[in-house]
Every structure is written in structure tokens, then in C-alpha cells.
């Protein structure tokens, strides 16, 4: 199979794996990416491709803002290759309470140097006349945009391949110290192994604090100009961080094709990707509640995907004590596309023992007590404590989520 010594094995060629492979290969490391399906065909293909600054906590804001800057560089002069659109986001406030929340958000984003504009009702309807009457206003974040993630994943992976990376179409059966066991019985060895398998990461390492959150998405036929911005309800934040129960939130996106992408939903305790009619009905009722004319649009397709969620809503980026040489780049929940590029930079900095553009601490896997951080480095000879198995996952995750565990 692969003859020469490998520096890094990356498990997973979704947007995270592809971004990590690209960043590591660009630094001269010999990278092998292992992906059992088509590149970018998991959650990467199922999400909305929204590039959005999220500010539910400082760490999330830092990561998403930094990553958005990187996206602008990546997209650069060829936005059409990623099907990038700088559509901006309008956070819609249904009532005065939500408008107050919007004002707080505006202050946070502005303090971070991000352009945004608070909209009263008149300004909101001037921009988006399709919204139902009676809303209080909103917050326009101009720098947000969207891409078509399968293409971006492919572009990143191709850059890695041009820098000497290899793509292996195989299934990883197990992660070992400094290597992996493949389904065909063969082994690959490397100094570093990066686990970037999204919702499937938990199958390889059950001790990871990951929970699958199923989401449904709907796409319509082409209706150019129907809405101009990605429209998200401020109530989304309440829904997105619920730790249990099914929920839907208003989230609508105009694709460059003129098609309207409609989300979003969250369900726990299921890894079945079958589309559930009842969730479709609920999601559409909710969306039509915000944009009545949506009812007349033709829905072409519905699908579902699995987000990999951690108890505190922040991804796992950094060393993992479960195996020697193991790094994690997973648990990005609903923000994987946005934060993929920053993830790759943070991971690369850690492997090279450098400082990154932002603090790495909030995302270190070691913040979950049983996952001790290994002293990171290319020479790895420090004996590690084996982690406790993380068996009964959902209740513990819920408890942590409700309490919003703070980083060490």
C-alpha cells in the first residue's frame, strides 16, 4: 500500500479533514487522508454552508470570526469555485425582547470589529419585504456569507493532494497508537493521527463526549430574488443549544442558484438519516410563519444530516490522550463549515508547537476531565494515563450542556 513514512494520517475527508490536510500538507508534512465515502459527502454535504459569526460565548466568537477572515482569503478571487455569496445574515427579532438581544449582539460584534447594523421594523421590511408583518426588527451582519461545502471540501483536498498528500478510500476499523487499522486488515502508521470524522468519530472512540444531533434541510426550485440575505430567527439560539427534545428554528438561505435552502431542526437520540415527514411539516410551518410566500414555492428535495455536538458547544481541537499521537478535530456541531479553516490553523500550530492567531485553550479536548492532553509534539514519548470509558453519554452531556462548562 503506502510505502513512504507518513507524518499525519487524517481520518475523514469532510470539510474539517480536508482543511486540516491542506494546512498540514502546505507545511511540508506527508499527509494521508482516509475517507470511506465520497469527499465531503457527510455532514459537509448536508448542511447549509452558512459562513456565520456566532457569539454565544467569547470562544465561539473568536473562532468563527477568525475563520471567516480565513474564508475570505481562501475564496479570494475565485468565489464562483466555492459558489460563495456574500449574502450577509439578518438575525430576525420577532418582538422587543428579541430586539434587545439583537442590540446586545450588535454591541458584541462591533466590539470585535465586525460590521453590523441594527434594523428597526421599517428597515427590516425595506430589506426583506417577504417577512411576515409584525416583527420588531433585526440585526444585519454584512460579512457573513455562504459556500457550497462539497466543492470547498474538494478544493481544499485537491490543494493538499497537489502538495503531496494521498487520499485513501478505505474504512478505518480502529485507531491505534501512532496509526490506524483499516477494514481490509492492513495498518497504516504515522507520527500523528488526526480524527476528523464528525458524527462518526464517536464510533472510533466511544469515550469522546460527542452526541449526534440530527438536522433536516429542504431546498426549493429556483426563485431568484425571493430573499436577499440569510434569515435566521434570534430564537435560533434558544433552539440550537437545547440539550434535549426536538426543535425547529427559522433559518432560510438564498443560494446563488436562486434556490431557497430552508432549515433548521435538531433532534437527539437518533442516528437514522431517514427524512421524517413530521419534522418536515413542523419546519416548514415554522418557516412559513416567518415568510408566508414560502408556501407557494416548490420543494424539490429534503434530506438530513448528523451534527457532532460536544457538551459545551465548542469543538475538540487538540491532542487526545486516548492514543499516542492522536489529535482531535471534531465536534463542530452546526458550525463546521464556518470554523473549518480556523480549526486547521489551530491544529497545525499545535502540531508544530507554535502560537496560533487566537488562543487554543477553549477548544482543547483536555477540558473534559477524562481526556488528558498529551504533551503535543512530533516526538511523543510521554507515558499517558488511559481515559475512563465514557459509557452513558447522553445524560452526562445534557448536564454539562445545561451548565455550559467553562474551559480550564
Amino acid at each position, binding site marked *: 500500500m503506502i510505502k513512504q513514512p507518513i507524518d499525519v494520517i487524517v481520518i475523514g475527508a469532510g470539510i474539517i479533514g480536508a482543511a486540516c490536510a491542506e494546512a498540514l500538507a502546505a507545511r511540508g508534512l506527508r499527509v494521508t487522508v482516509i475517507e470511506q*465515502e*465520497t469527499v*465531503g*459527502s457527510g455532514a459537509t*454535504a448536508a448542511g447549509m454552508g452558512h459562513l456565520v459569526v456566532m457569539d454565544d460565548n467569547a470562544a465561539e466568537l473568536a473562532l468563527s470570526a477568525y475563520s471567516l477572515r480565513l474564508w475570505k482569503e481562501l475564496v479570494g478571487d475565485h468565489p464562483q469555485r466555492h459558489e460563495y455569496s456574500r449574502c450577509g445574515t439578518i438575525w430576525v427579532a420577532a418582538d422587543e425582547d428579541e430586539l434587545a438581544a439583537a442590540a446586545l449582539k450588535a454591541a458584541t460584534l462591533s466590539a470585535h470589529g465586525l460590521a453590523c447594523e441594527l434594523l428597526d421594523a421599517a428597515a427590516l421590511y425595506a430589506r426583506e419585504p417577504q417577512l411576515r408583518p409584525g416583527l420588531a426588527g433585526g440585526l444585519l451582519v454584512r460579512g457573513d456569507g455562504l459556500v457550497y461545502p*462539497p*466543492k470547498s471540501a*474538494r478544493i481544499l483536498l485537491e490543494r493538499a493532494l497537489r502538495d503531496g498528500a494521498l487520499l485513501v478510500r478505505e474504512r478505518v476499523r480502529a485507531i491505534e497508537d501512532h496509526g490506524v487499522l483499516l477494514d481490509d486488515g492492513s495498518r497504516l502508521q504515522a507520527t500523528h493521527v488526526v480524527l476528523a470524522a464528525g458524527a462518526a468519530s464517536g464510533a472510533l472512540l466511544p469515550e469522546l463526549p460527542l452526541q449526534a444531533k440530527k438536522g433536516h434541510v*429542504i*431546498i*426549493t*426550485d429556483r426563485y431568484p430574488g425571493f430573499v436577499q440575505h440569510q434569515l435566521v430567527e434570534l430564537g435560533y439560539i434558544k433552539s440550537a443549544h437545547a440539550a434535549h427534545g426536538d426543535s425547529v428554528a427559522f433559518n432560510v438561505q438564498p443560494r446563488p442558484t436562486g434556490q431557497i435552502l*430552508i432549515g433548521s431542526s435538531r433532534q437527539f437520540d437518533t442516528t437514522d438519516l431517514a*427524512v421524517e*415527514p*413530521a419534522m*418536515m*411539516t413542523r419546519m*416548514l*410551518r415554522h*418557516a*412559513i410563519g416567518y415568510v408566508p410566500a*414560502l*408556501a*407557494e*414555492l*416548490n*420543494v*424539490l*428535495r*429534503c*434530506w438530513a444530516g448528523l451534527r457532532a455536538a460536544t457538551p459545551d458547544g465548542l469543538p475538540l481541537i487538540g491532542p487526545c490522550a486516548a492514543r499516542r499521537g492522536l489529535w482531535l478535530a471534531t465536534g463542530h456541531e452546526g458550525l463546521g463549515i464556518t470554523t473549518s479553516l480556523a480549526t486547521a490553523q489551530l491544529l497545525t500550530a499545535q502540531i508544530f508547537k507554535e502560537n496560533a492567531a487566537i488562543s487554543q485553550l477553549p477548544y482543547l479536548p483536555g477540558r473534559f476531565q477524562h481526556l488528558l492532553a498529551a504533551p503535543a509534539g512530533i516526538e511523543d514519548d510521554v507515558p499517558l494515563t488511559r481515559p475512563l470509558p465514557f459509557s452513558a453519554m447522553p445524560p452526562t452531556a445534557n448536564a454539562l450542556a445545561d451548565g455550559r462548562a467553562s474551559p480550564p
Partner: protein
Amino acid sequence: MMHDFDVLVIGAGPAGLAAAHAAAAHGMRVGVVDDNPLAGGQIWRGGPEQQRDARAQTLWSDLRAAANVRFMQRSRVLYAPAPKQLLVQTPDAALTLRYGRLIIATGARELLLPFPGWTLPGVTGAGGLQALAKGGYPVDGKRVLVAGSGPLLLAVAATLRERGAQLVGIAEQAPLWRLARFGFSLLATPSKLAQSLRLARQLSGVPYFANSFVLAAHGDDALRSVRLRRGAKTATIACDLLACGYGLLPNVELALALGCALDGLSVRVDELQRCSVDDVFCAGEGSGIGGVDLALAEGRVAGLAAAGLSTLALAAVKHRQRWRGFAGRLAYTFAPRAELRALADDDTIVCRCEDVTHGELRQHDSWRGAKLQTRCGMGPCQGRICGAATGVLYGWRPDAVRMPIVPARAGSIAAACDHTTV
């Protein structure tokens, strides 16, 4: 709003009408859903009462008079919101229909294969042009070339001629020796033989080319001429319309959405037309291409069986047998030849909804990979046209069917009843 039926029939072509008739005659509350403005499916398009076939008229007049039969025209099944329920979209509303037994009689569509110029205005399917003409599409005085494969080509040509088209030829890709064998085998089905002789009379004077197929359609903004392979030679034929189709493919989307198993390209059924899912039946072209006689026989069996009348259904089975043999001979005679797979150039569009070319597609090794990167199959036809084409061209198998099984108004999905309430 919910509507309850003992037997719900999807499709008002010969199989669906025969099934509805059999079930209704035995007292079942029957619903019939069809996406066209009038019943009749493809072969009886324009309404059964308009057809020369007496069977159409008899079925229709009985069904129309029946108080226990409800027709829903211009209505499409979107998906199953719950077991034994279907969400159906009408022109202005959405209905949730509940059924005891479901009969899928959704018929067939044409196999359309890409060739250079096939996207030009003026190029249609063969059955496609016949269907359009029956809806009033002007063909009077137009020079029409009918091409592709199957006995349908003759019926199409005859219909067009009746409406004033000037038939410049019929090009059949099957080789002559297979056609001769098929013709001889019609002796086993006298009514089919009589039908062919009638067609031959109606088409006297029209050039018929066996062993011939379309290489390319030419024109700037509309069709001007067709380049044809005729045996060993090539000919260019000037024409206004090209009606080209390569046989029929069962419409299996609804059956698949309900979890029914297939046998090859058609829905698997047992002796009583039962599918692999309880209380679901399939009759007509959906369970195997075989023409109107087979469809009527199967519809009757399915209708009786769905009404719980297995004995009567089994008695009706013997009428079906003769037509099964015919169906087998059809498939063998008109199987598409290998050259049809190689007609597309790199810049020939294969996915018409998303304008994806053969050159882009052949770089991928699976339907899913191609779909994600090129959008092939993601358009409003939901992969029906390109799915069949890529199956023939690259051997790809499409994804599982997901809801909605046809483009659906968002409001229809939003209006689906909560199945926990009545």
C-alpha cells in the same frame, strides 16, 4: 382534512381504471388519484370516453356512475406522512388520504437517451410527442421523424399522421431479424396482430428503417435536421420535429418510497399483484412493461384482491398469462443496442435540469459523487430523466427515493395532518 378509502388507486390509466372498477363493483369505497386533467393514462390520453377502445368507454361509464368512487384529477402523491396515509397535492390544496389497501398503477415513462442536439426545441420523446399532440400540440403540416425503439413508435406515428403530420420516417434501432421474429410471435396474440396490421395500413407510405438510430439533432435555436445511422450508412433528414424514445421505464418512485421491493426495473408482485409491503398492490406497466391488455388484466386482479376477493382474483389471473409472454418478447426484441451508450459528446448535456454535460459526468465514478460535485440529479425532475440516462451511459444506480416524490408546494407539506389526530 382526511379522506378515507377502502381501496386507493394511484393512476387512472387502464390498470388503475380496471382496478378501481373491480373494487368498486364489490362495494369498496374507492379513490382514484391521477396527475393529468383527464383519466386514461398515456394510452387513453384525453379521457376514456374519447377512445375507440370499447373497454375504455365501458370502464369509464361504470366508474362515473358509481357513488362509491371518487376521482381526484390533477393530483399528485407527495409522500406518506404516516403508515396507510398519502399526502396528495391538488391544484390549490393538499389532502391527506387514508387507505385500507393501496393499488399503485402509476404506469411508465419513456427512456430518453442523450445525443448531440437532444435539448433543441423540436426534439421530444416519441410517446412525448403523442401525448403533447393529444393535448392539442400543433403537428399539422409539420415534418416529423419518429425514432427510437419499440412498438410504441408505430402507434405514435399513426396518431401524428391522423393529426396531419407529415411523417418523414420511422427509425427503429432493433435489427430487422429481431423485428421479424417479434412479428411472427404476434400470432400468439391475435388482437395484437390485428392491431399491427391496422397500424401498417395507417402508416402505408411512411419510410420504415430498421437497424437505424439517431446520431445527432441539428439546428440553432430549434430543430432543423437529424443525422441518422441507417444500417451501415448515414443519412441527414430535414424535419421540424423529432419524436425519439427508447422504450418504457416503469414509474416506481411511489413504490420505492413505500419500501416495496423491485425485480430489476419494475415493482415485484406476487400472483395477486401484491407488493412486498402489506396492503400495497401494483398493476400495469409499473410491475412490468406489457401494454394495455396486460394492464387491464393485472388491474382487475389487483382490484379484486384489494377488495379481499382472493378467489375471484385468482380466477382472473389466467387472463393475464397470455400477456406476460408478450411482455417478455417485447423486452427482448427492443433492448437498446450498445451504440446508444456512445452517442453523447463531451459537451452533450446529460442532466437537463442542471445543464451537466457528459464530459463533466464521466469523470466521476458514482451517482452520488457526480451529484454532489455537478448537481446532476438535483433538479426538479429529481433524477428521473438523467438517472435513467446515466444508468445506461455509466452503469450508475441512483440514490434511494426521498420525499417529496414530485416537486411539492411548501404549503402542502406544511398542511399535512398530524397523524395522531383525526
